[in-house]
């Protein structure tokens, strides 16, 4: 029978797949071989001391699978250093890089929280929209409070529209007063009035 039983542990391993020490993995992160860099990232996942090195490589990595391996490692590491190093990339013109950064930040709620108010107050409205995008999947009890602050104070219709969409899902009665003021605050933006009404309808229907 051509079905051949082979033990998985007997399969030959590529050199980069052998067990690495943390120091070896950090050194390998800067190496020329993409498979080696991916193995290094996998090895360093969860190692807070390696967050700096992972972020440094992430910033310059151009190989897509390697960038993904580093992103996953950073998501699994839960380090404040990661947030500090990656926040500037929310202003990046590289949409793929920026989206990956948003996804990493979404996975680090406790580490992102201390930065959120500053992000939502950023002078660049695009960065504020990306900050709301981070909130979309952020498991943090202050998400609604932050969103209410956005729809209460932000003057940019696109930022407010993004927040309204999310408030429709996560909002409670606490959001109603801020939502009620949208029509007056944005009298020239009928879409925002509609979106606020939609969010209130959803919140009001809650039992």
């Amino acid at each position, binding site marked *: 029978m051509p079905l051949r039983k082979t033990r998985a542990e007997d399969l030959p391993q590529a050199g980069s797949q052998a067990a690495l020490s943390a120091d070896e993995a950090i050194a390998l992160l800067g190496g020329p071989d993409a498979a080696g860099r991916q193995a290094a990232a996998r090895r360093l996942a969860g190692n807070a001391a390696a967050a700096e090195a992972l972020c440094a490589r992430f910033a310059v990595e151009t190989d897509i699978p390697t960038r993904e391996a580093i*992103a996953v490692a950073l*998501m699994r590491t839960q380090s404040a250093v990661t947030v500090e190093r990656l926040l500037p990339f929310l202003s990046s013109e590289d949409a793929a890089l920026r989206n990956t950064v948003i996804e990493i930040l979404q996975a680090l709620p*406790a580490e992102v929280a201390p930065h959120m108010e500053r992000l939502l107050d950023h002078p660049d409205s695009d960065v504020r929209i990306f900050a709301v995008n981070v909130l979309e999947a952020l498991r943090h009890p202050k998400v609604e409070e932050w969103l209410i602050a956005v729809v209460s104070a932000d003057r940019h219709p696109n930022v407010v529209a993004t927040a309204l969409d999310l408030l429709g899902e996560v909002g409670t009665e606490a959001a109603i007063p801020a939502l009620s003021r949208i029509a007056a605050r944005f009298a020239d933006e009928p879409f925002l009035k509609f979106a606020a009404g939609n969010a209130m309808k959803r919140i009001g229907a809650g039992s």
Partner: protein
Amino acid sequence: MSHPAIGQEDFHKFREFFYRKTGILFEDSKRYFVDKRLIERMEATGSDSFRSYFTMLRFQASSEELQALTNAMTVNETYFFRESYQFDCLVNSLLDEVVATKPPKKPVRIWSLPCSTGEEPYSIVIYLLEHWAKLDRFDVEIFASDIDTQVLQAAAKGVFSPRSVQHLPAALLRKYFTRLANGNYKIDEQVSDSIDFSRVNLLDPLDTRHFRDIDVVFCRNLLIYFDDTSRRAAAEIFYNAMSPGGFICLGHSESMSRISDLFRVRKFKDAIVYQKPL
């Protein structure tokens, strides 16, 4: 005892959230099914309203409740030839593509994970023996892994209940199984001896580092139980373990496109699967 009520807007809100998190979309016709399980979980967690339950589901840092609800919303049991359209796809399309670019003398590698008590990898073996004409021209290695050592022991033993084999055609049951005195069925040793069973925690690089050049992965109804980060880590690990051009088959309610951009969607006559780019 009165049950907490779930309104129409609540249902829609929950449906959108659950779809985004799991890829499972409940039609309006599933309303009763969804409400029943939501109410069960609300009672189990002491939530007095949908709103308080949904807030916990949405923001709980550990995601434990989302996990519990996902378990309640998905009913999984393993049996021979389950979701057999993917095995049809394997023998009608995937393997032919795999061997078309395979260097001479390189074996075809198939990995079933989680293999549970063995129904899936044994189904693969039977499908290959019965339906893949090129089997005599290529060496095929089949790996089957699970994190649970008890199910691995049961898998290696190869004894199955009548319920487990109920979807097998009678001719195949006679050909590959022996009926035991207690009514169970023991699989032919030639079949069980062709599979390497191993304990693997998918998210532990030390466990997965041996798996290289895998051509086809069957990972059905596992990722749905992972949180977002773990799901993405798993996709990355599979990508690393697979050959360029290799395929991954997920459960019918799972979508790799919602997890990772590393794979591309391939639509075949029998099934939609995901492929590591060549």
